């Protein structure tokens, strides 16, 4: 922070008007309210003290992207006026079973206590990502959140159950958003709370209710009653126990639906499904479609494919977002449907659609921006369903593509180079060749040239995930050309420390680095010392780091918390580092540390 301080010059004579510095503060605050982007606000706060003060007073959206980096007390002191708070916890690689459970089980507790004691009196919405939250935390929140509180969303969280949801439902009057997405909830089968029935009687303000990942069955009568008394509901995501007949009834109650998580999308055995015919489904979707409101579909957790085609003619034309990641559709089932989805911008699909399905999609969905092709059988020797043919077809058809995640068994450099040339708007390129160390299967060469072309040709690239056989040359390219790359994931690649050095010395904007199972050692790690304070975190697991190397980092960078995690808590570690996870923090090392974690 600059030492310039505009408060220093005292007034030269008595004034009737307020002193210039206070006027400036008022002006500043008014102007800063229009500044929304977090990076802009951050930059503004660094100009001088009064800008810092004004920005802090007016910041309404607070994102603590590492919950361990700042304490709630500190955040509340600086940003007392926060309306929306986003908290992120575990590192992303924890999603893939790389981090033992219980790594930071009570990280949320101080925040829950802070919210309960009105540290953020204007709090309206809370978004939690990859955080362990207990039912007691939710109970505490439910009873003490301010009346302005409206929105609660959980993404990839764990630790709570239906009992916690019931607390929220019953106590948070005026709740508008309750989204539980991709969470692993602890459910005791015989003690499931009916949290849907826990909502108070009378009309609710619910605008969004998503519980697609909720594993037990929700009593349908209570759900239907809740939806019936929620006139503002626009987003509804039900779980796989809701049958097609039940869905139809729910849709009749939601005339303004924009986002729908369809549940099973298959007729069930219950009363609601008796006599269910295609015509009724069509009517349900065409009434949502006629108002052109329904733009996003997900769910399809047990898809009966014949019904997919049914809704194509009435609903597909308006769709901008389609999530089929739980629906193993074949090309025959997929083609007629996707042919109608001309406005699609986001598509998540399984590789069961094959190269021909992707080719068809590319020819119809010209507005596509965000694509994920996920593996039906996520094993490295599974049958090859999509290949470089699909990738090349996508790049030919979807020139405006911004983000792609593509799983395949094998790939060629040529297809990746083609994509880099055809899709200059790419900001996110994540290619996962499931066969580890797989080279270009046509030429036998490493995938260096392909990834090199991506960083060279896609100047807007901010996120990159690599895979396949890569030598140090690939990292030389990334370091040389990947000047806007902020997030980098590397697995099973590289020849040695030089590769890591290329990255750390070349990628000047690098903020998040995740590395697993690469032959990188201390020399590589230490080559990044100049840059680590500019980064949010570094994760290195299964590499060749030693205790000495990590200690050296900890010694020279006191504001980095350097955690060494033992991924097998049962066995004794002698030497060598299993997982290094280091992050900058204003609070120093955390206190609740499980036995398998050592903080240097």
């Amino acid at each position, binding site marked *: 922070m600059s030492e310039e301080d505009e408060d220093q010059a005292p007034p030269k004579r008595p004034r009737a008007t307020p002193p210039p510095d206070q006027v400036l503060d008022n002006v500043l605050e008014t102007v800063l309210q229009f500044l929304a982007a977090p990076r802009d606000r951050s930059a503004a706060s660094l100009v001088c003290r009064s800008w810092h003060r004004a920005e802090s007073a007016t910041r309404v959206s607070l994102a603590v992207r590492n919950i361990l980096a700042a304490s709630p007390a500190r955040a509340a002191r600086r940003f007392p006026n926060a309306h929306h708070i986003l908290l992120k916890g575990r590192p992303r690689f924890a999603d893939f079973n790389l981090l033992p459970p219980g790594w930071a089980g009570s990280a949320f507790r101080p925040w829950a206590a802070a919210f309960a004691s009105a540290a953020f009196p204007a709090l309206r919405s809370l978004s939690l990502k990859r955080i362990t939250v207990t039912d007691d935390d939710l109970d505490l929140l439910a009873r003490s959140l301010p009346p302005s509180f409206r929105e609660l969303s959980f993404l990839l969280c764990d630790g709570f159950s239906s009992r916690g949801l019931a607390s929220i439902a019953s106590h948070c009057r005026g709740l508008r958003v309750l989204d539980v997405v991709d969470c*692993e909830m602890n459910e005791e089968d015989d003690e499931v709370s009916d949290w849907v029935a826990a909502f108070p009687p009378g009309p609710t303000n619910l605008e969004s209710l998503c519980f697609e990942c909720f594993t037990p069955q929700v009593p349908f009568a209570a759900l239907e009653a809740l939806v019936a008394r929620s006139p503002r509901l626009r987003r509804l995501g039900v779980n796989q126990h809701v049958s097609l007949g039940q869905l139809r009834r729910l849709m009749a109650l939601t005339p303004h639906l924009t986002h729908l998580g369809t549940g099973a999308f298959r007729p069930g055995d219950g009363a609601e499904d008796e006599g269910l015919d295609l015509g009724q489904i069509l009517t349900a979707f065409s009434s949502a479609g006629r108002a052109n409101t329904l733009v996003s579909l997900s769910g399809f957790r047990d898809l009966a494919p014949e019904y997919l085609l049914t809704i194509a003619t009435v609903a597909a034309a308006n769709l901008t977002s389609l999530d089929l990641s739980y629906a193993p559709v074949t090309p025959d089932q997929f083609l007629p449907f996707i042919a109608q989805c001309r406005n699609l911008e986001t598509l998540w699909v399984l590789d069961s659609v094959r190269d021909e399905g992707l080719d068809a999609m590319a020819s119809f969905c010209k507005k596509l921006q965000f694509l994920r092709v996920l593996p039906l059988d*996520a094993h*490295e020797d599974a049958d090859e369903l999509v290949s470089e043919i699909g990738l090349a077809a996508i790049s030919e058809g979807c020139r405006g593509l911004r983000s792609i995640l593509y799983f395949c068994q094998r790939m060629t450099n040529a297809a990746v180079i083609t994509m880099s040339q055809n899709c200059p708007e790419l900001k996110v390129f994540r290619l996962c060749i499931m066969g*580890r*160390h797989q080279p270009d299967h046509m030429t036998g060469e490493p995938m260096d040239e392909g990834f090199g072309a991506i960083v060279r040709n896609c100047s807007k690239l901010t996120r990159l995930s690599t895979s396949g056989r890569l030598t140090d040359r690939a990292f030389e390219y990334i370091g040389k050309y990947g000047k806007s790359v902020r997030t980098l994931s590397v697995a099973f690649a590289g020849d040695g420390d030089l590769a890591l050095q290329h990255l750390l010395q070349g990628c000047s904007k690098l903020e998040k680095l995740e590395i697993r199972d690469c032959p990188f050692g201390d020399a590589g790690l230490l080559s990044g010392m100049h840059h680590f304070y500019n980064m949010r975190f570094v994760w290195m697991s299964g590499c*060749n780091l030693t205790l000495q190397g990590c200690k050296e980092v900890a010694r020279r960078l006191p504001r980095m918390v350097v955690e060494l995690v033992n991924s097998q808590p049962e066995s004794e570690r002698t*030497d060598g580092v299993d997982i290094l996870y280091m992050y900058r923090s204003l609070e120093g090392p955390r206190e609740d540390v499980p036995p398998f974690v050592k903080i240097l």
Partner: protein
Amino acid sequence: MAECKGRDQYSPSSSMDSSTHPALSTTASPCRPARQDLSTDLRLGLSLSTSPSSSSSSLHEVESIVSTPSRNQVLFNWPPIKPLLRSALAASASGHRRHRTLFVKVYMDGFPIGRKLDLLLLVGYDSLLIKLCHMFKTPITYAAVYHQQVPGVKAAHILTYEDQDGDWMMVGDVPWKLFLSSVKKLKITRAG
């Protein structure tokens, strides 16, 4: 948790011998004890091949298993997909839900390299024949044609299958569903 790696005792150098597998190499740091592979539980029933690496003689941990690029090993932390999606798709693949596959190997006489085919994607013998003719670029005959119940050209190849008793039978005599439940392998043999 993570897969084990065999570590070579390797003379320190910054560049790798291109013939050595990267995962087997180490830089100047001392050889780490190879970790125990906790994904053993998931490998029940799968054939595990110890990768025939040159480093096996210098393995330090006797109990550990050289994994490196062993293609038969099932890692539960690779490839990286979200756990809920992985378990949902695995449940569907194991037949708890309706989508299933029935892959069988198909060989042709004179061709050592076989193909694989998912019979559940097909609806009957006709589609099977069409698919195989495309795959192997040759006209193929099956029982109905061969015995002239269905008019057609008698081709140079006949489609046969190995059933659960290990016998080789001509394809086409039994109803399709019954065929699906008994077929183990397919072979395209020369006629006459």
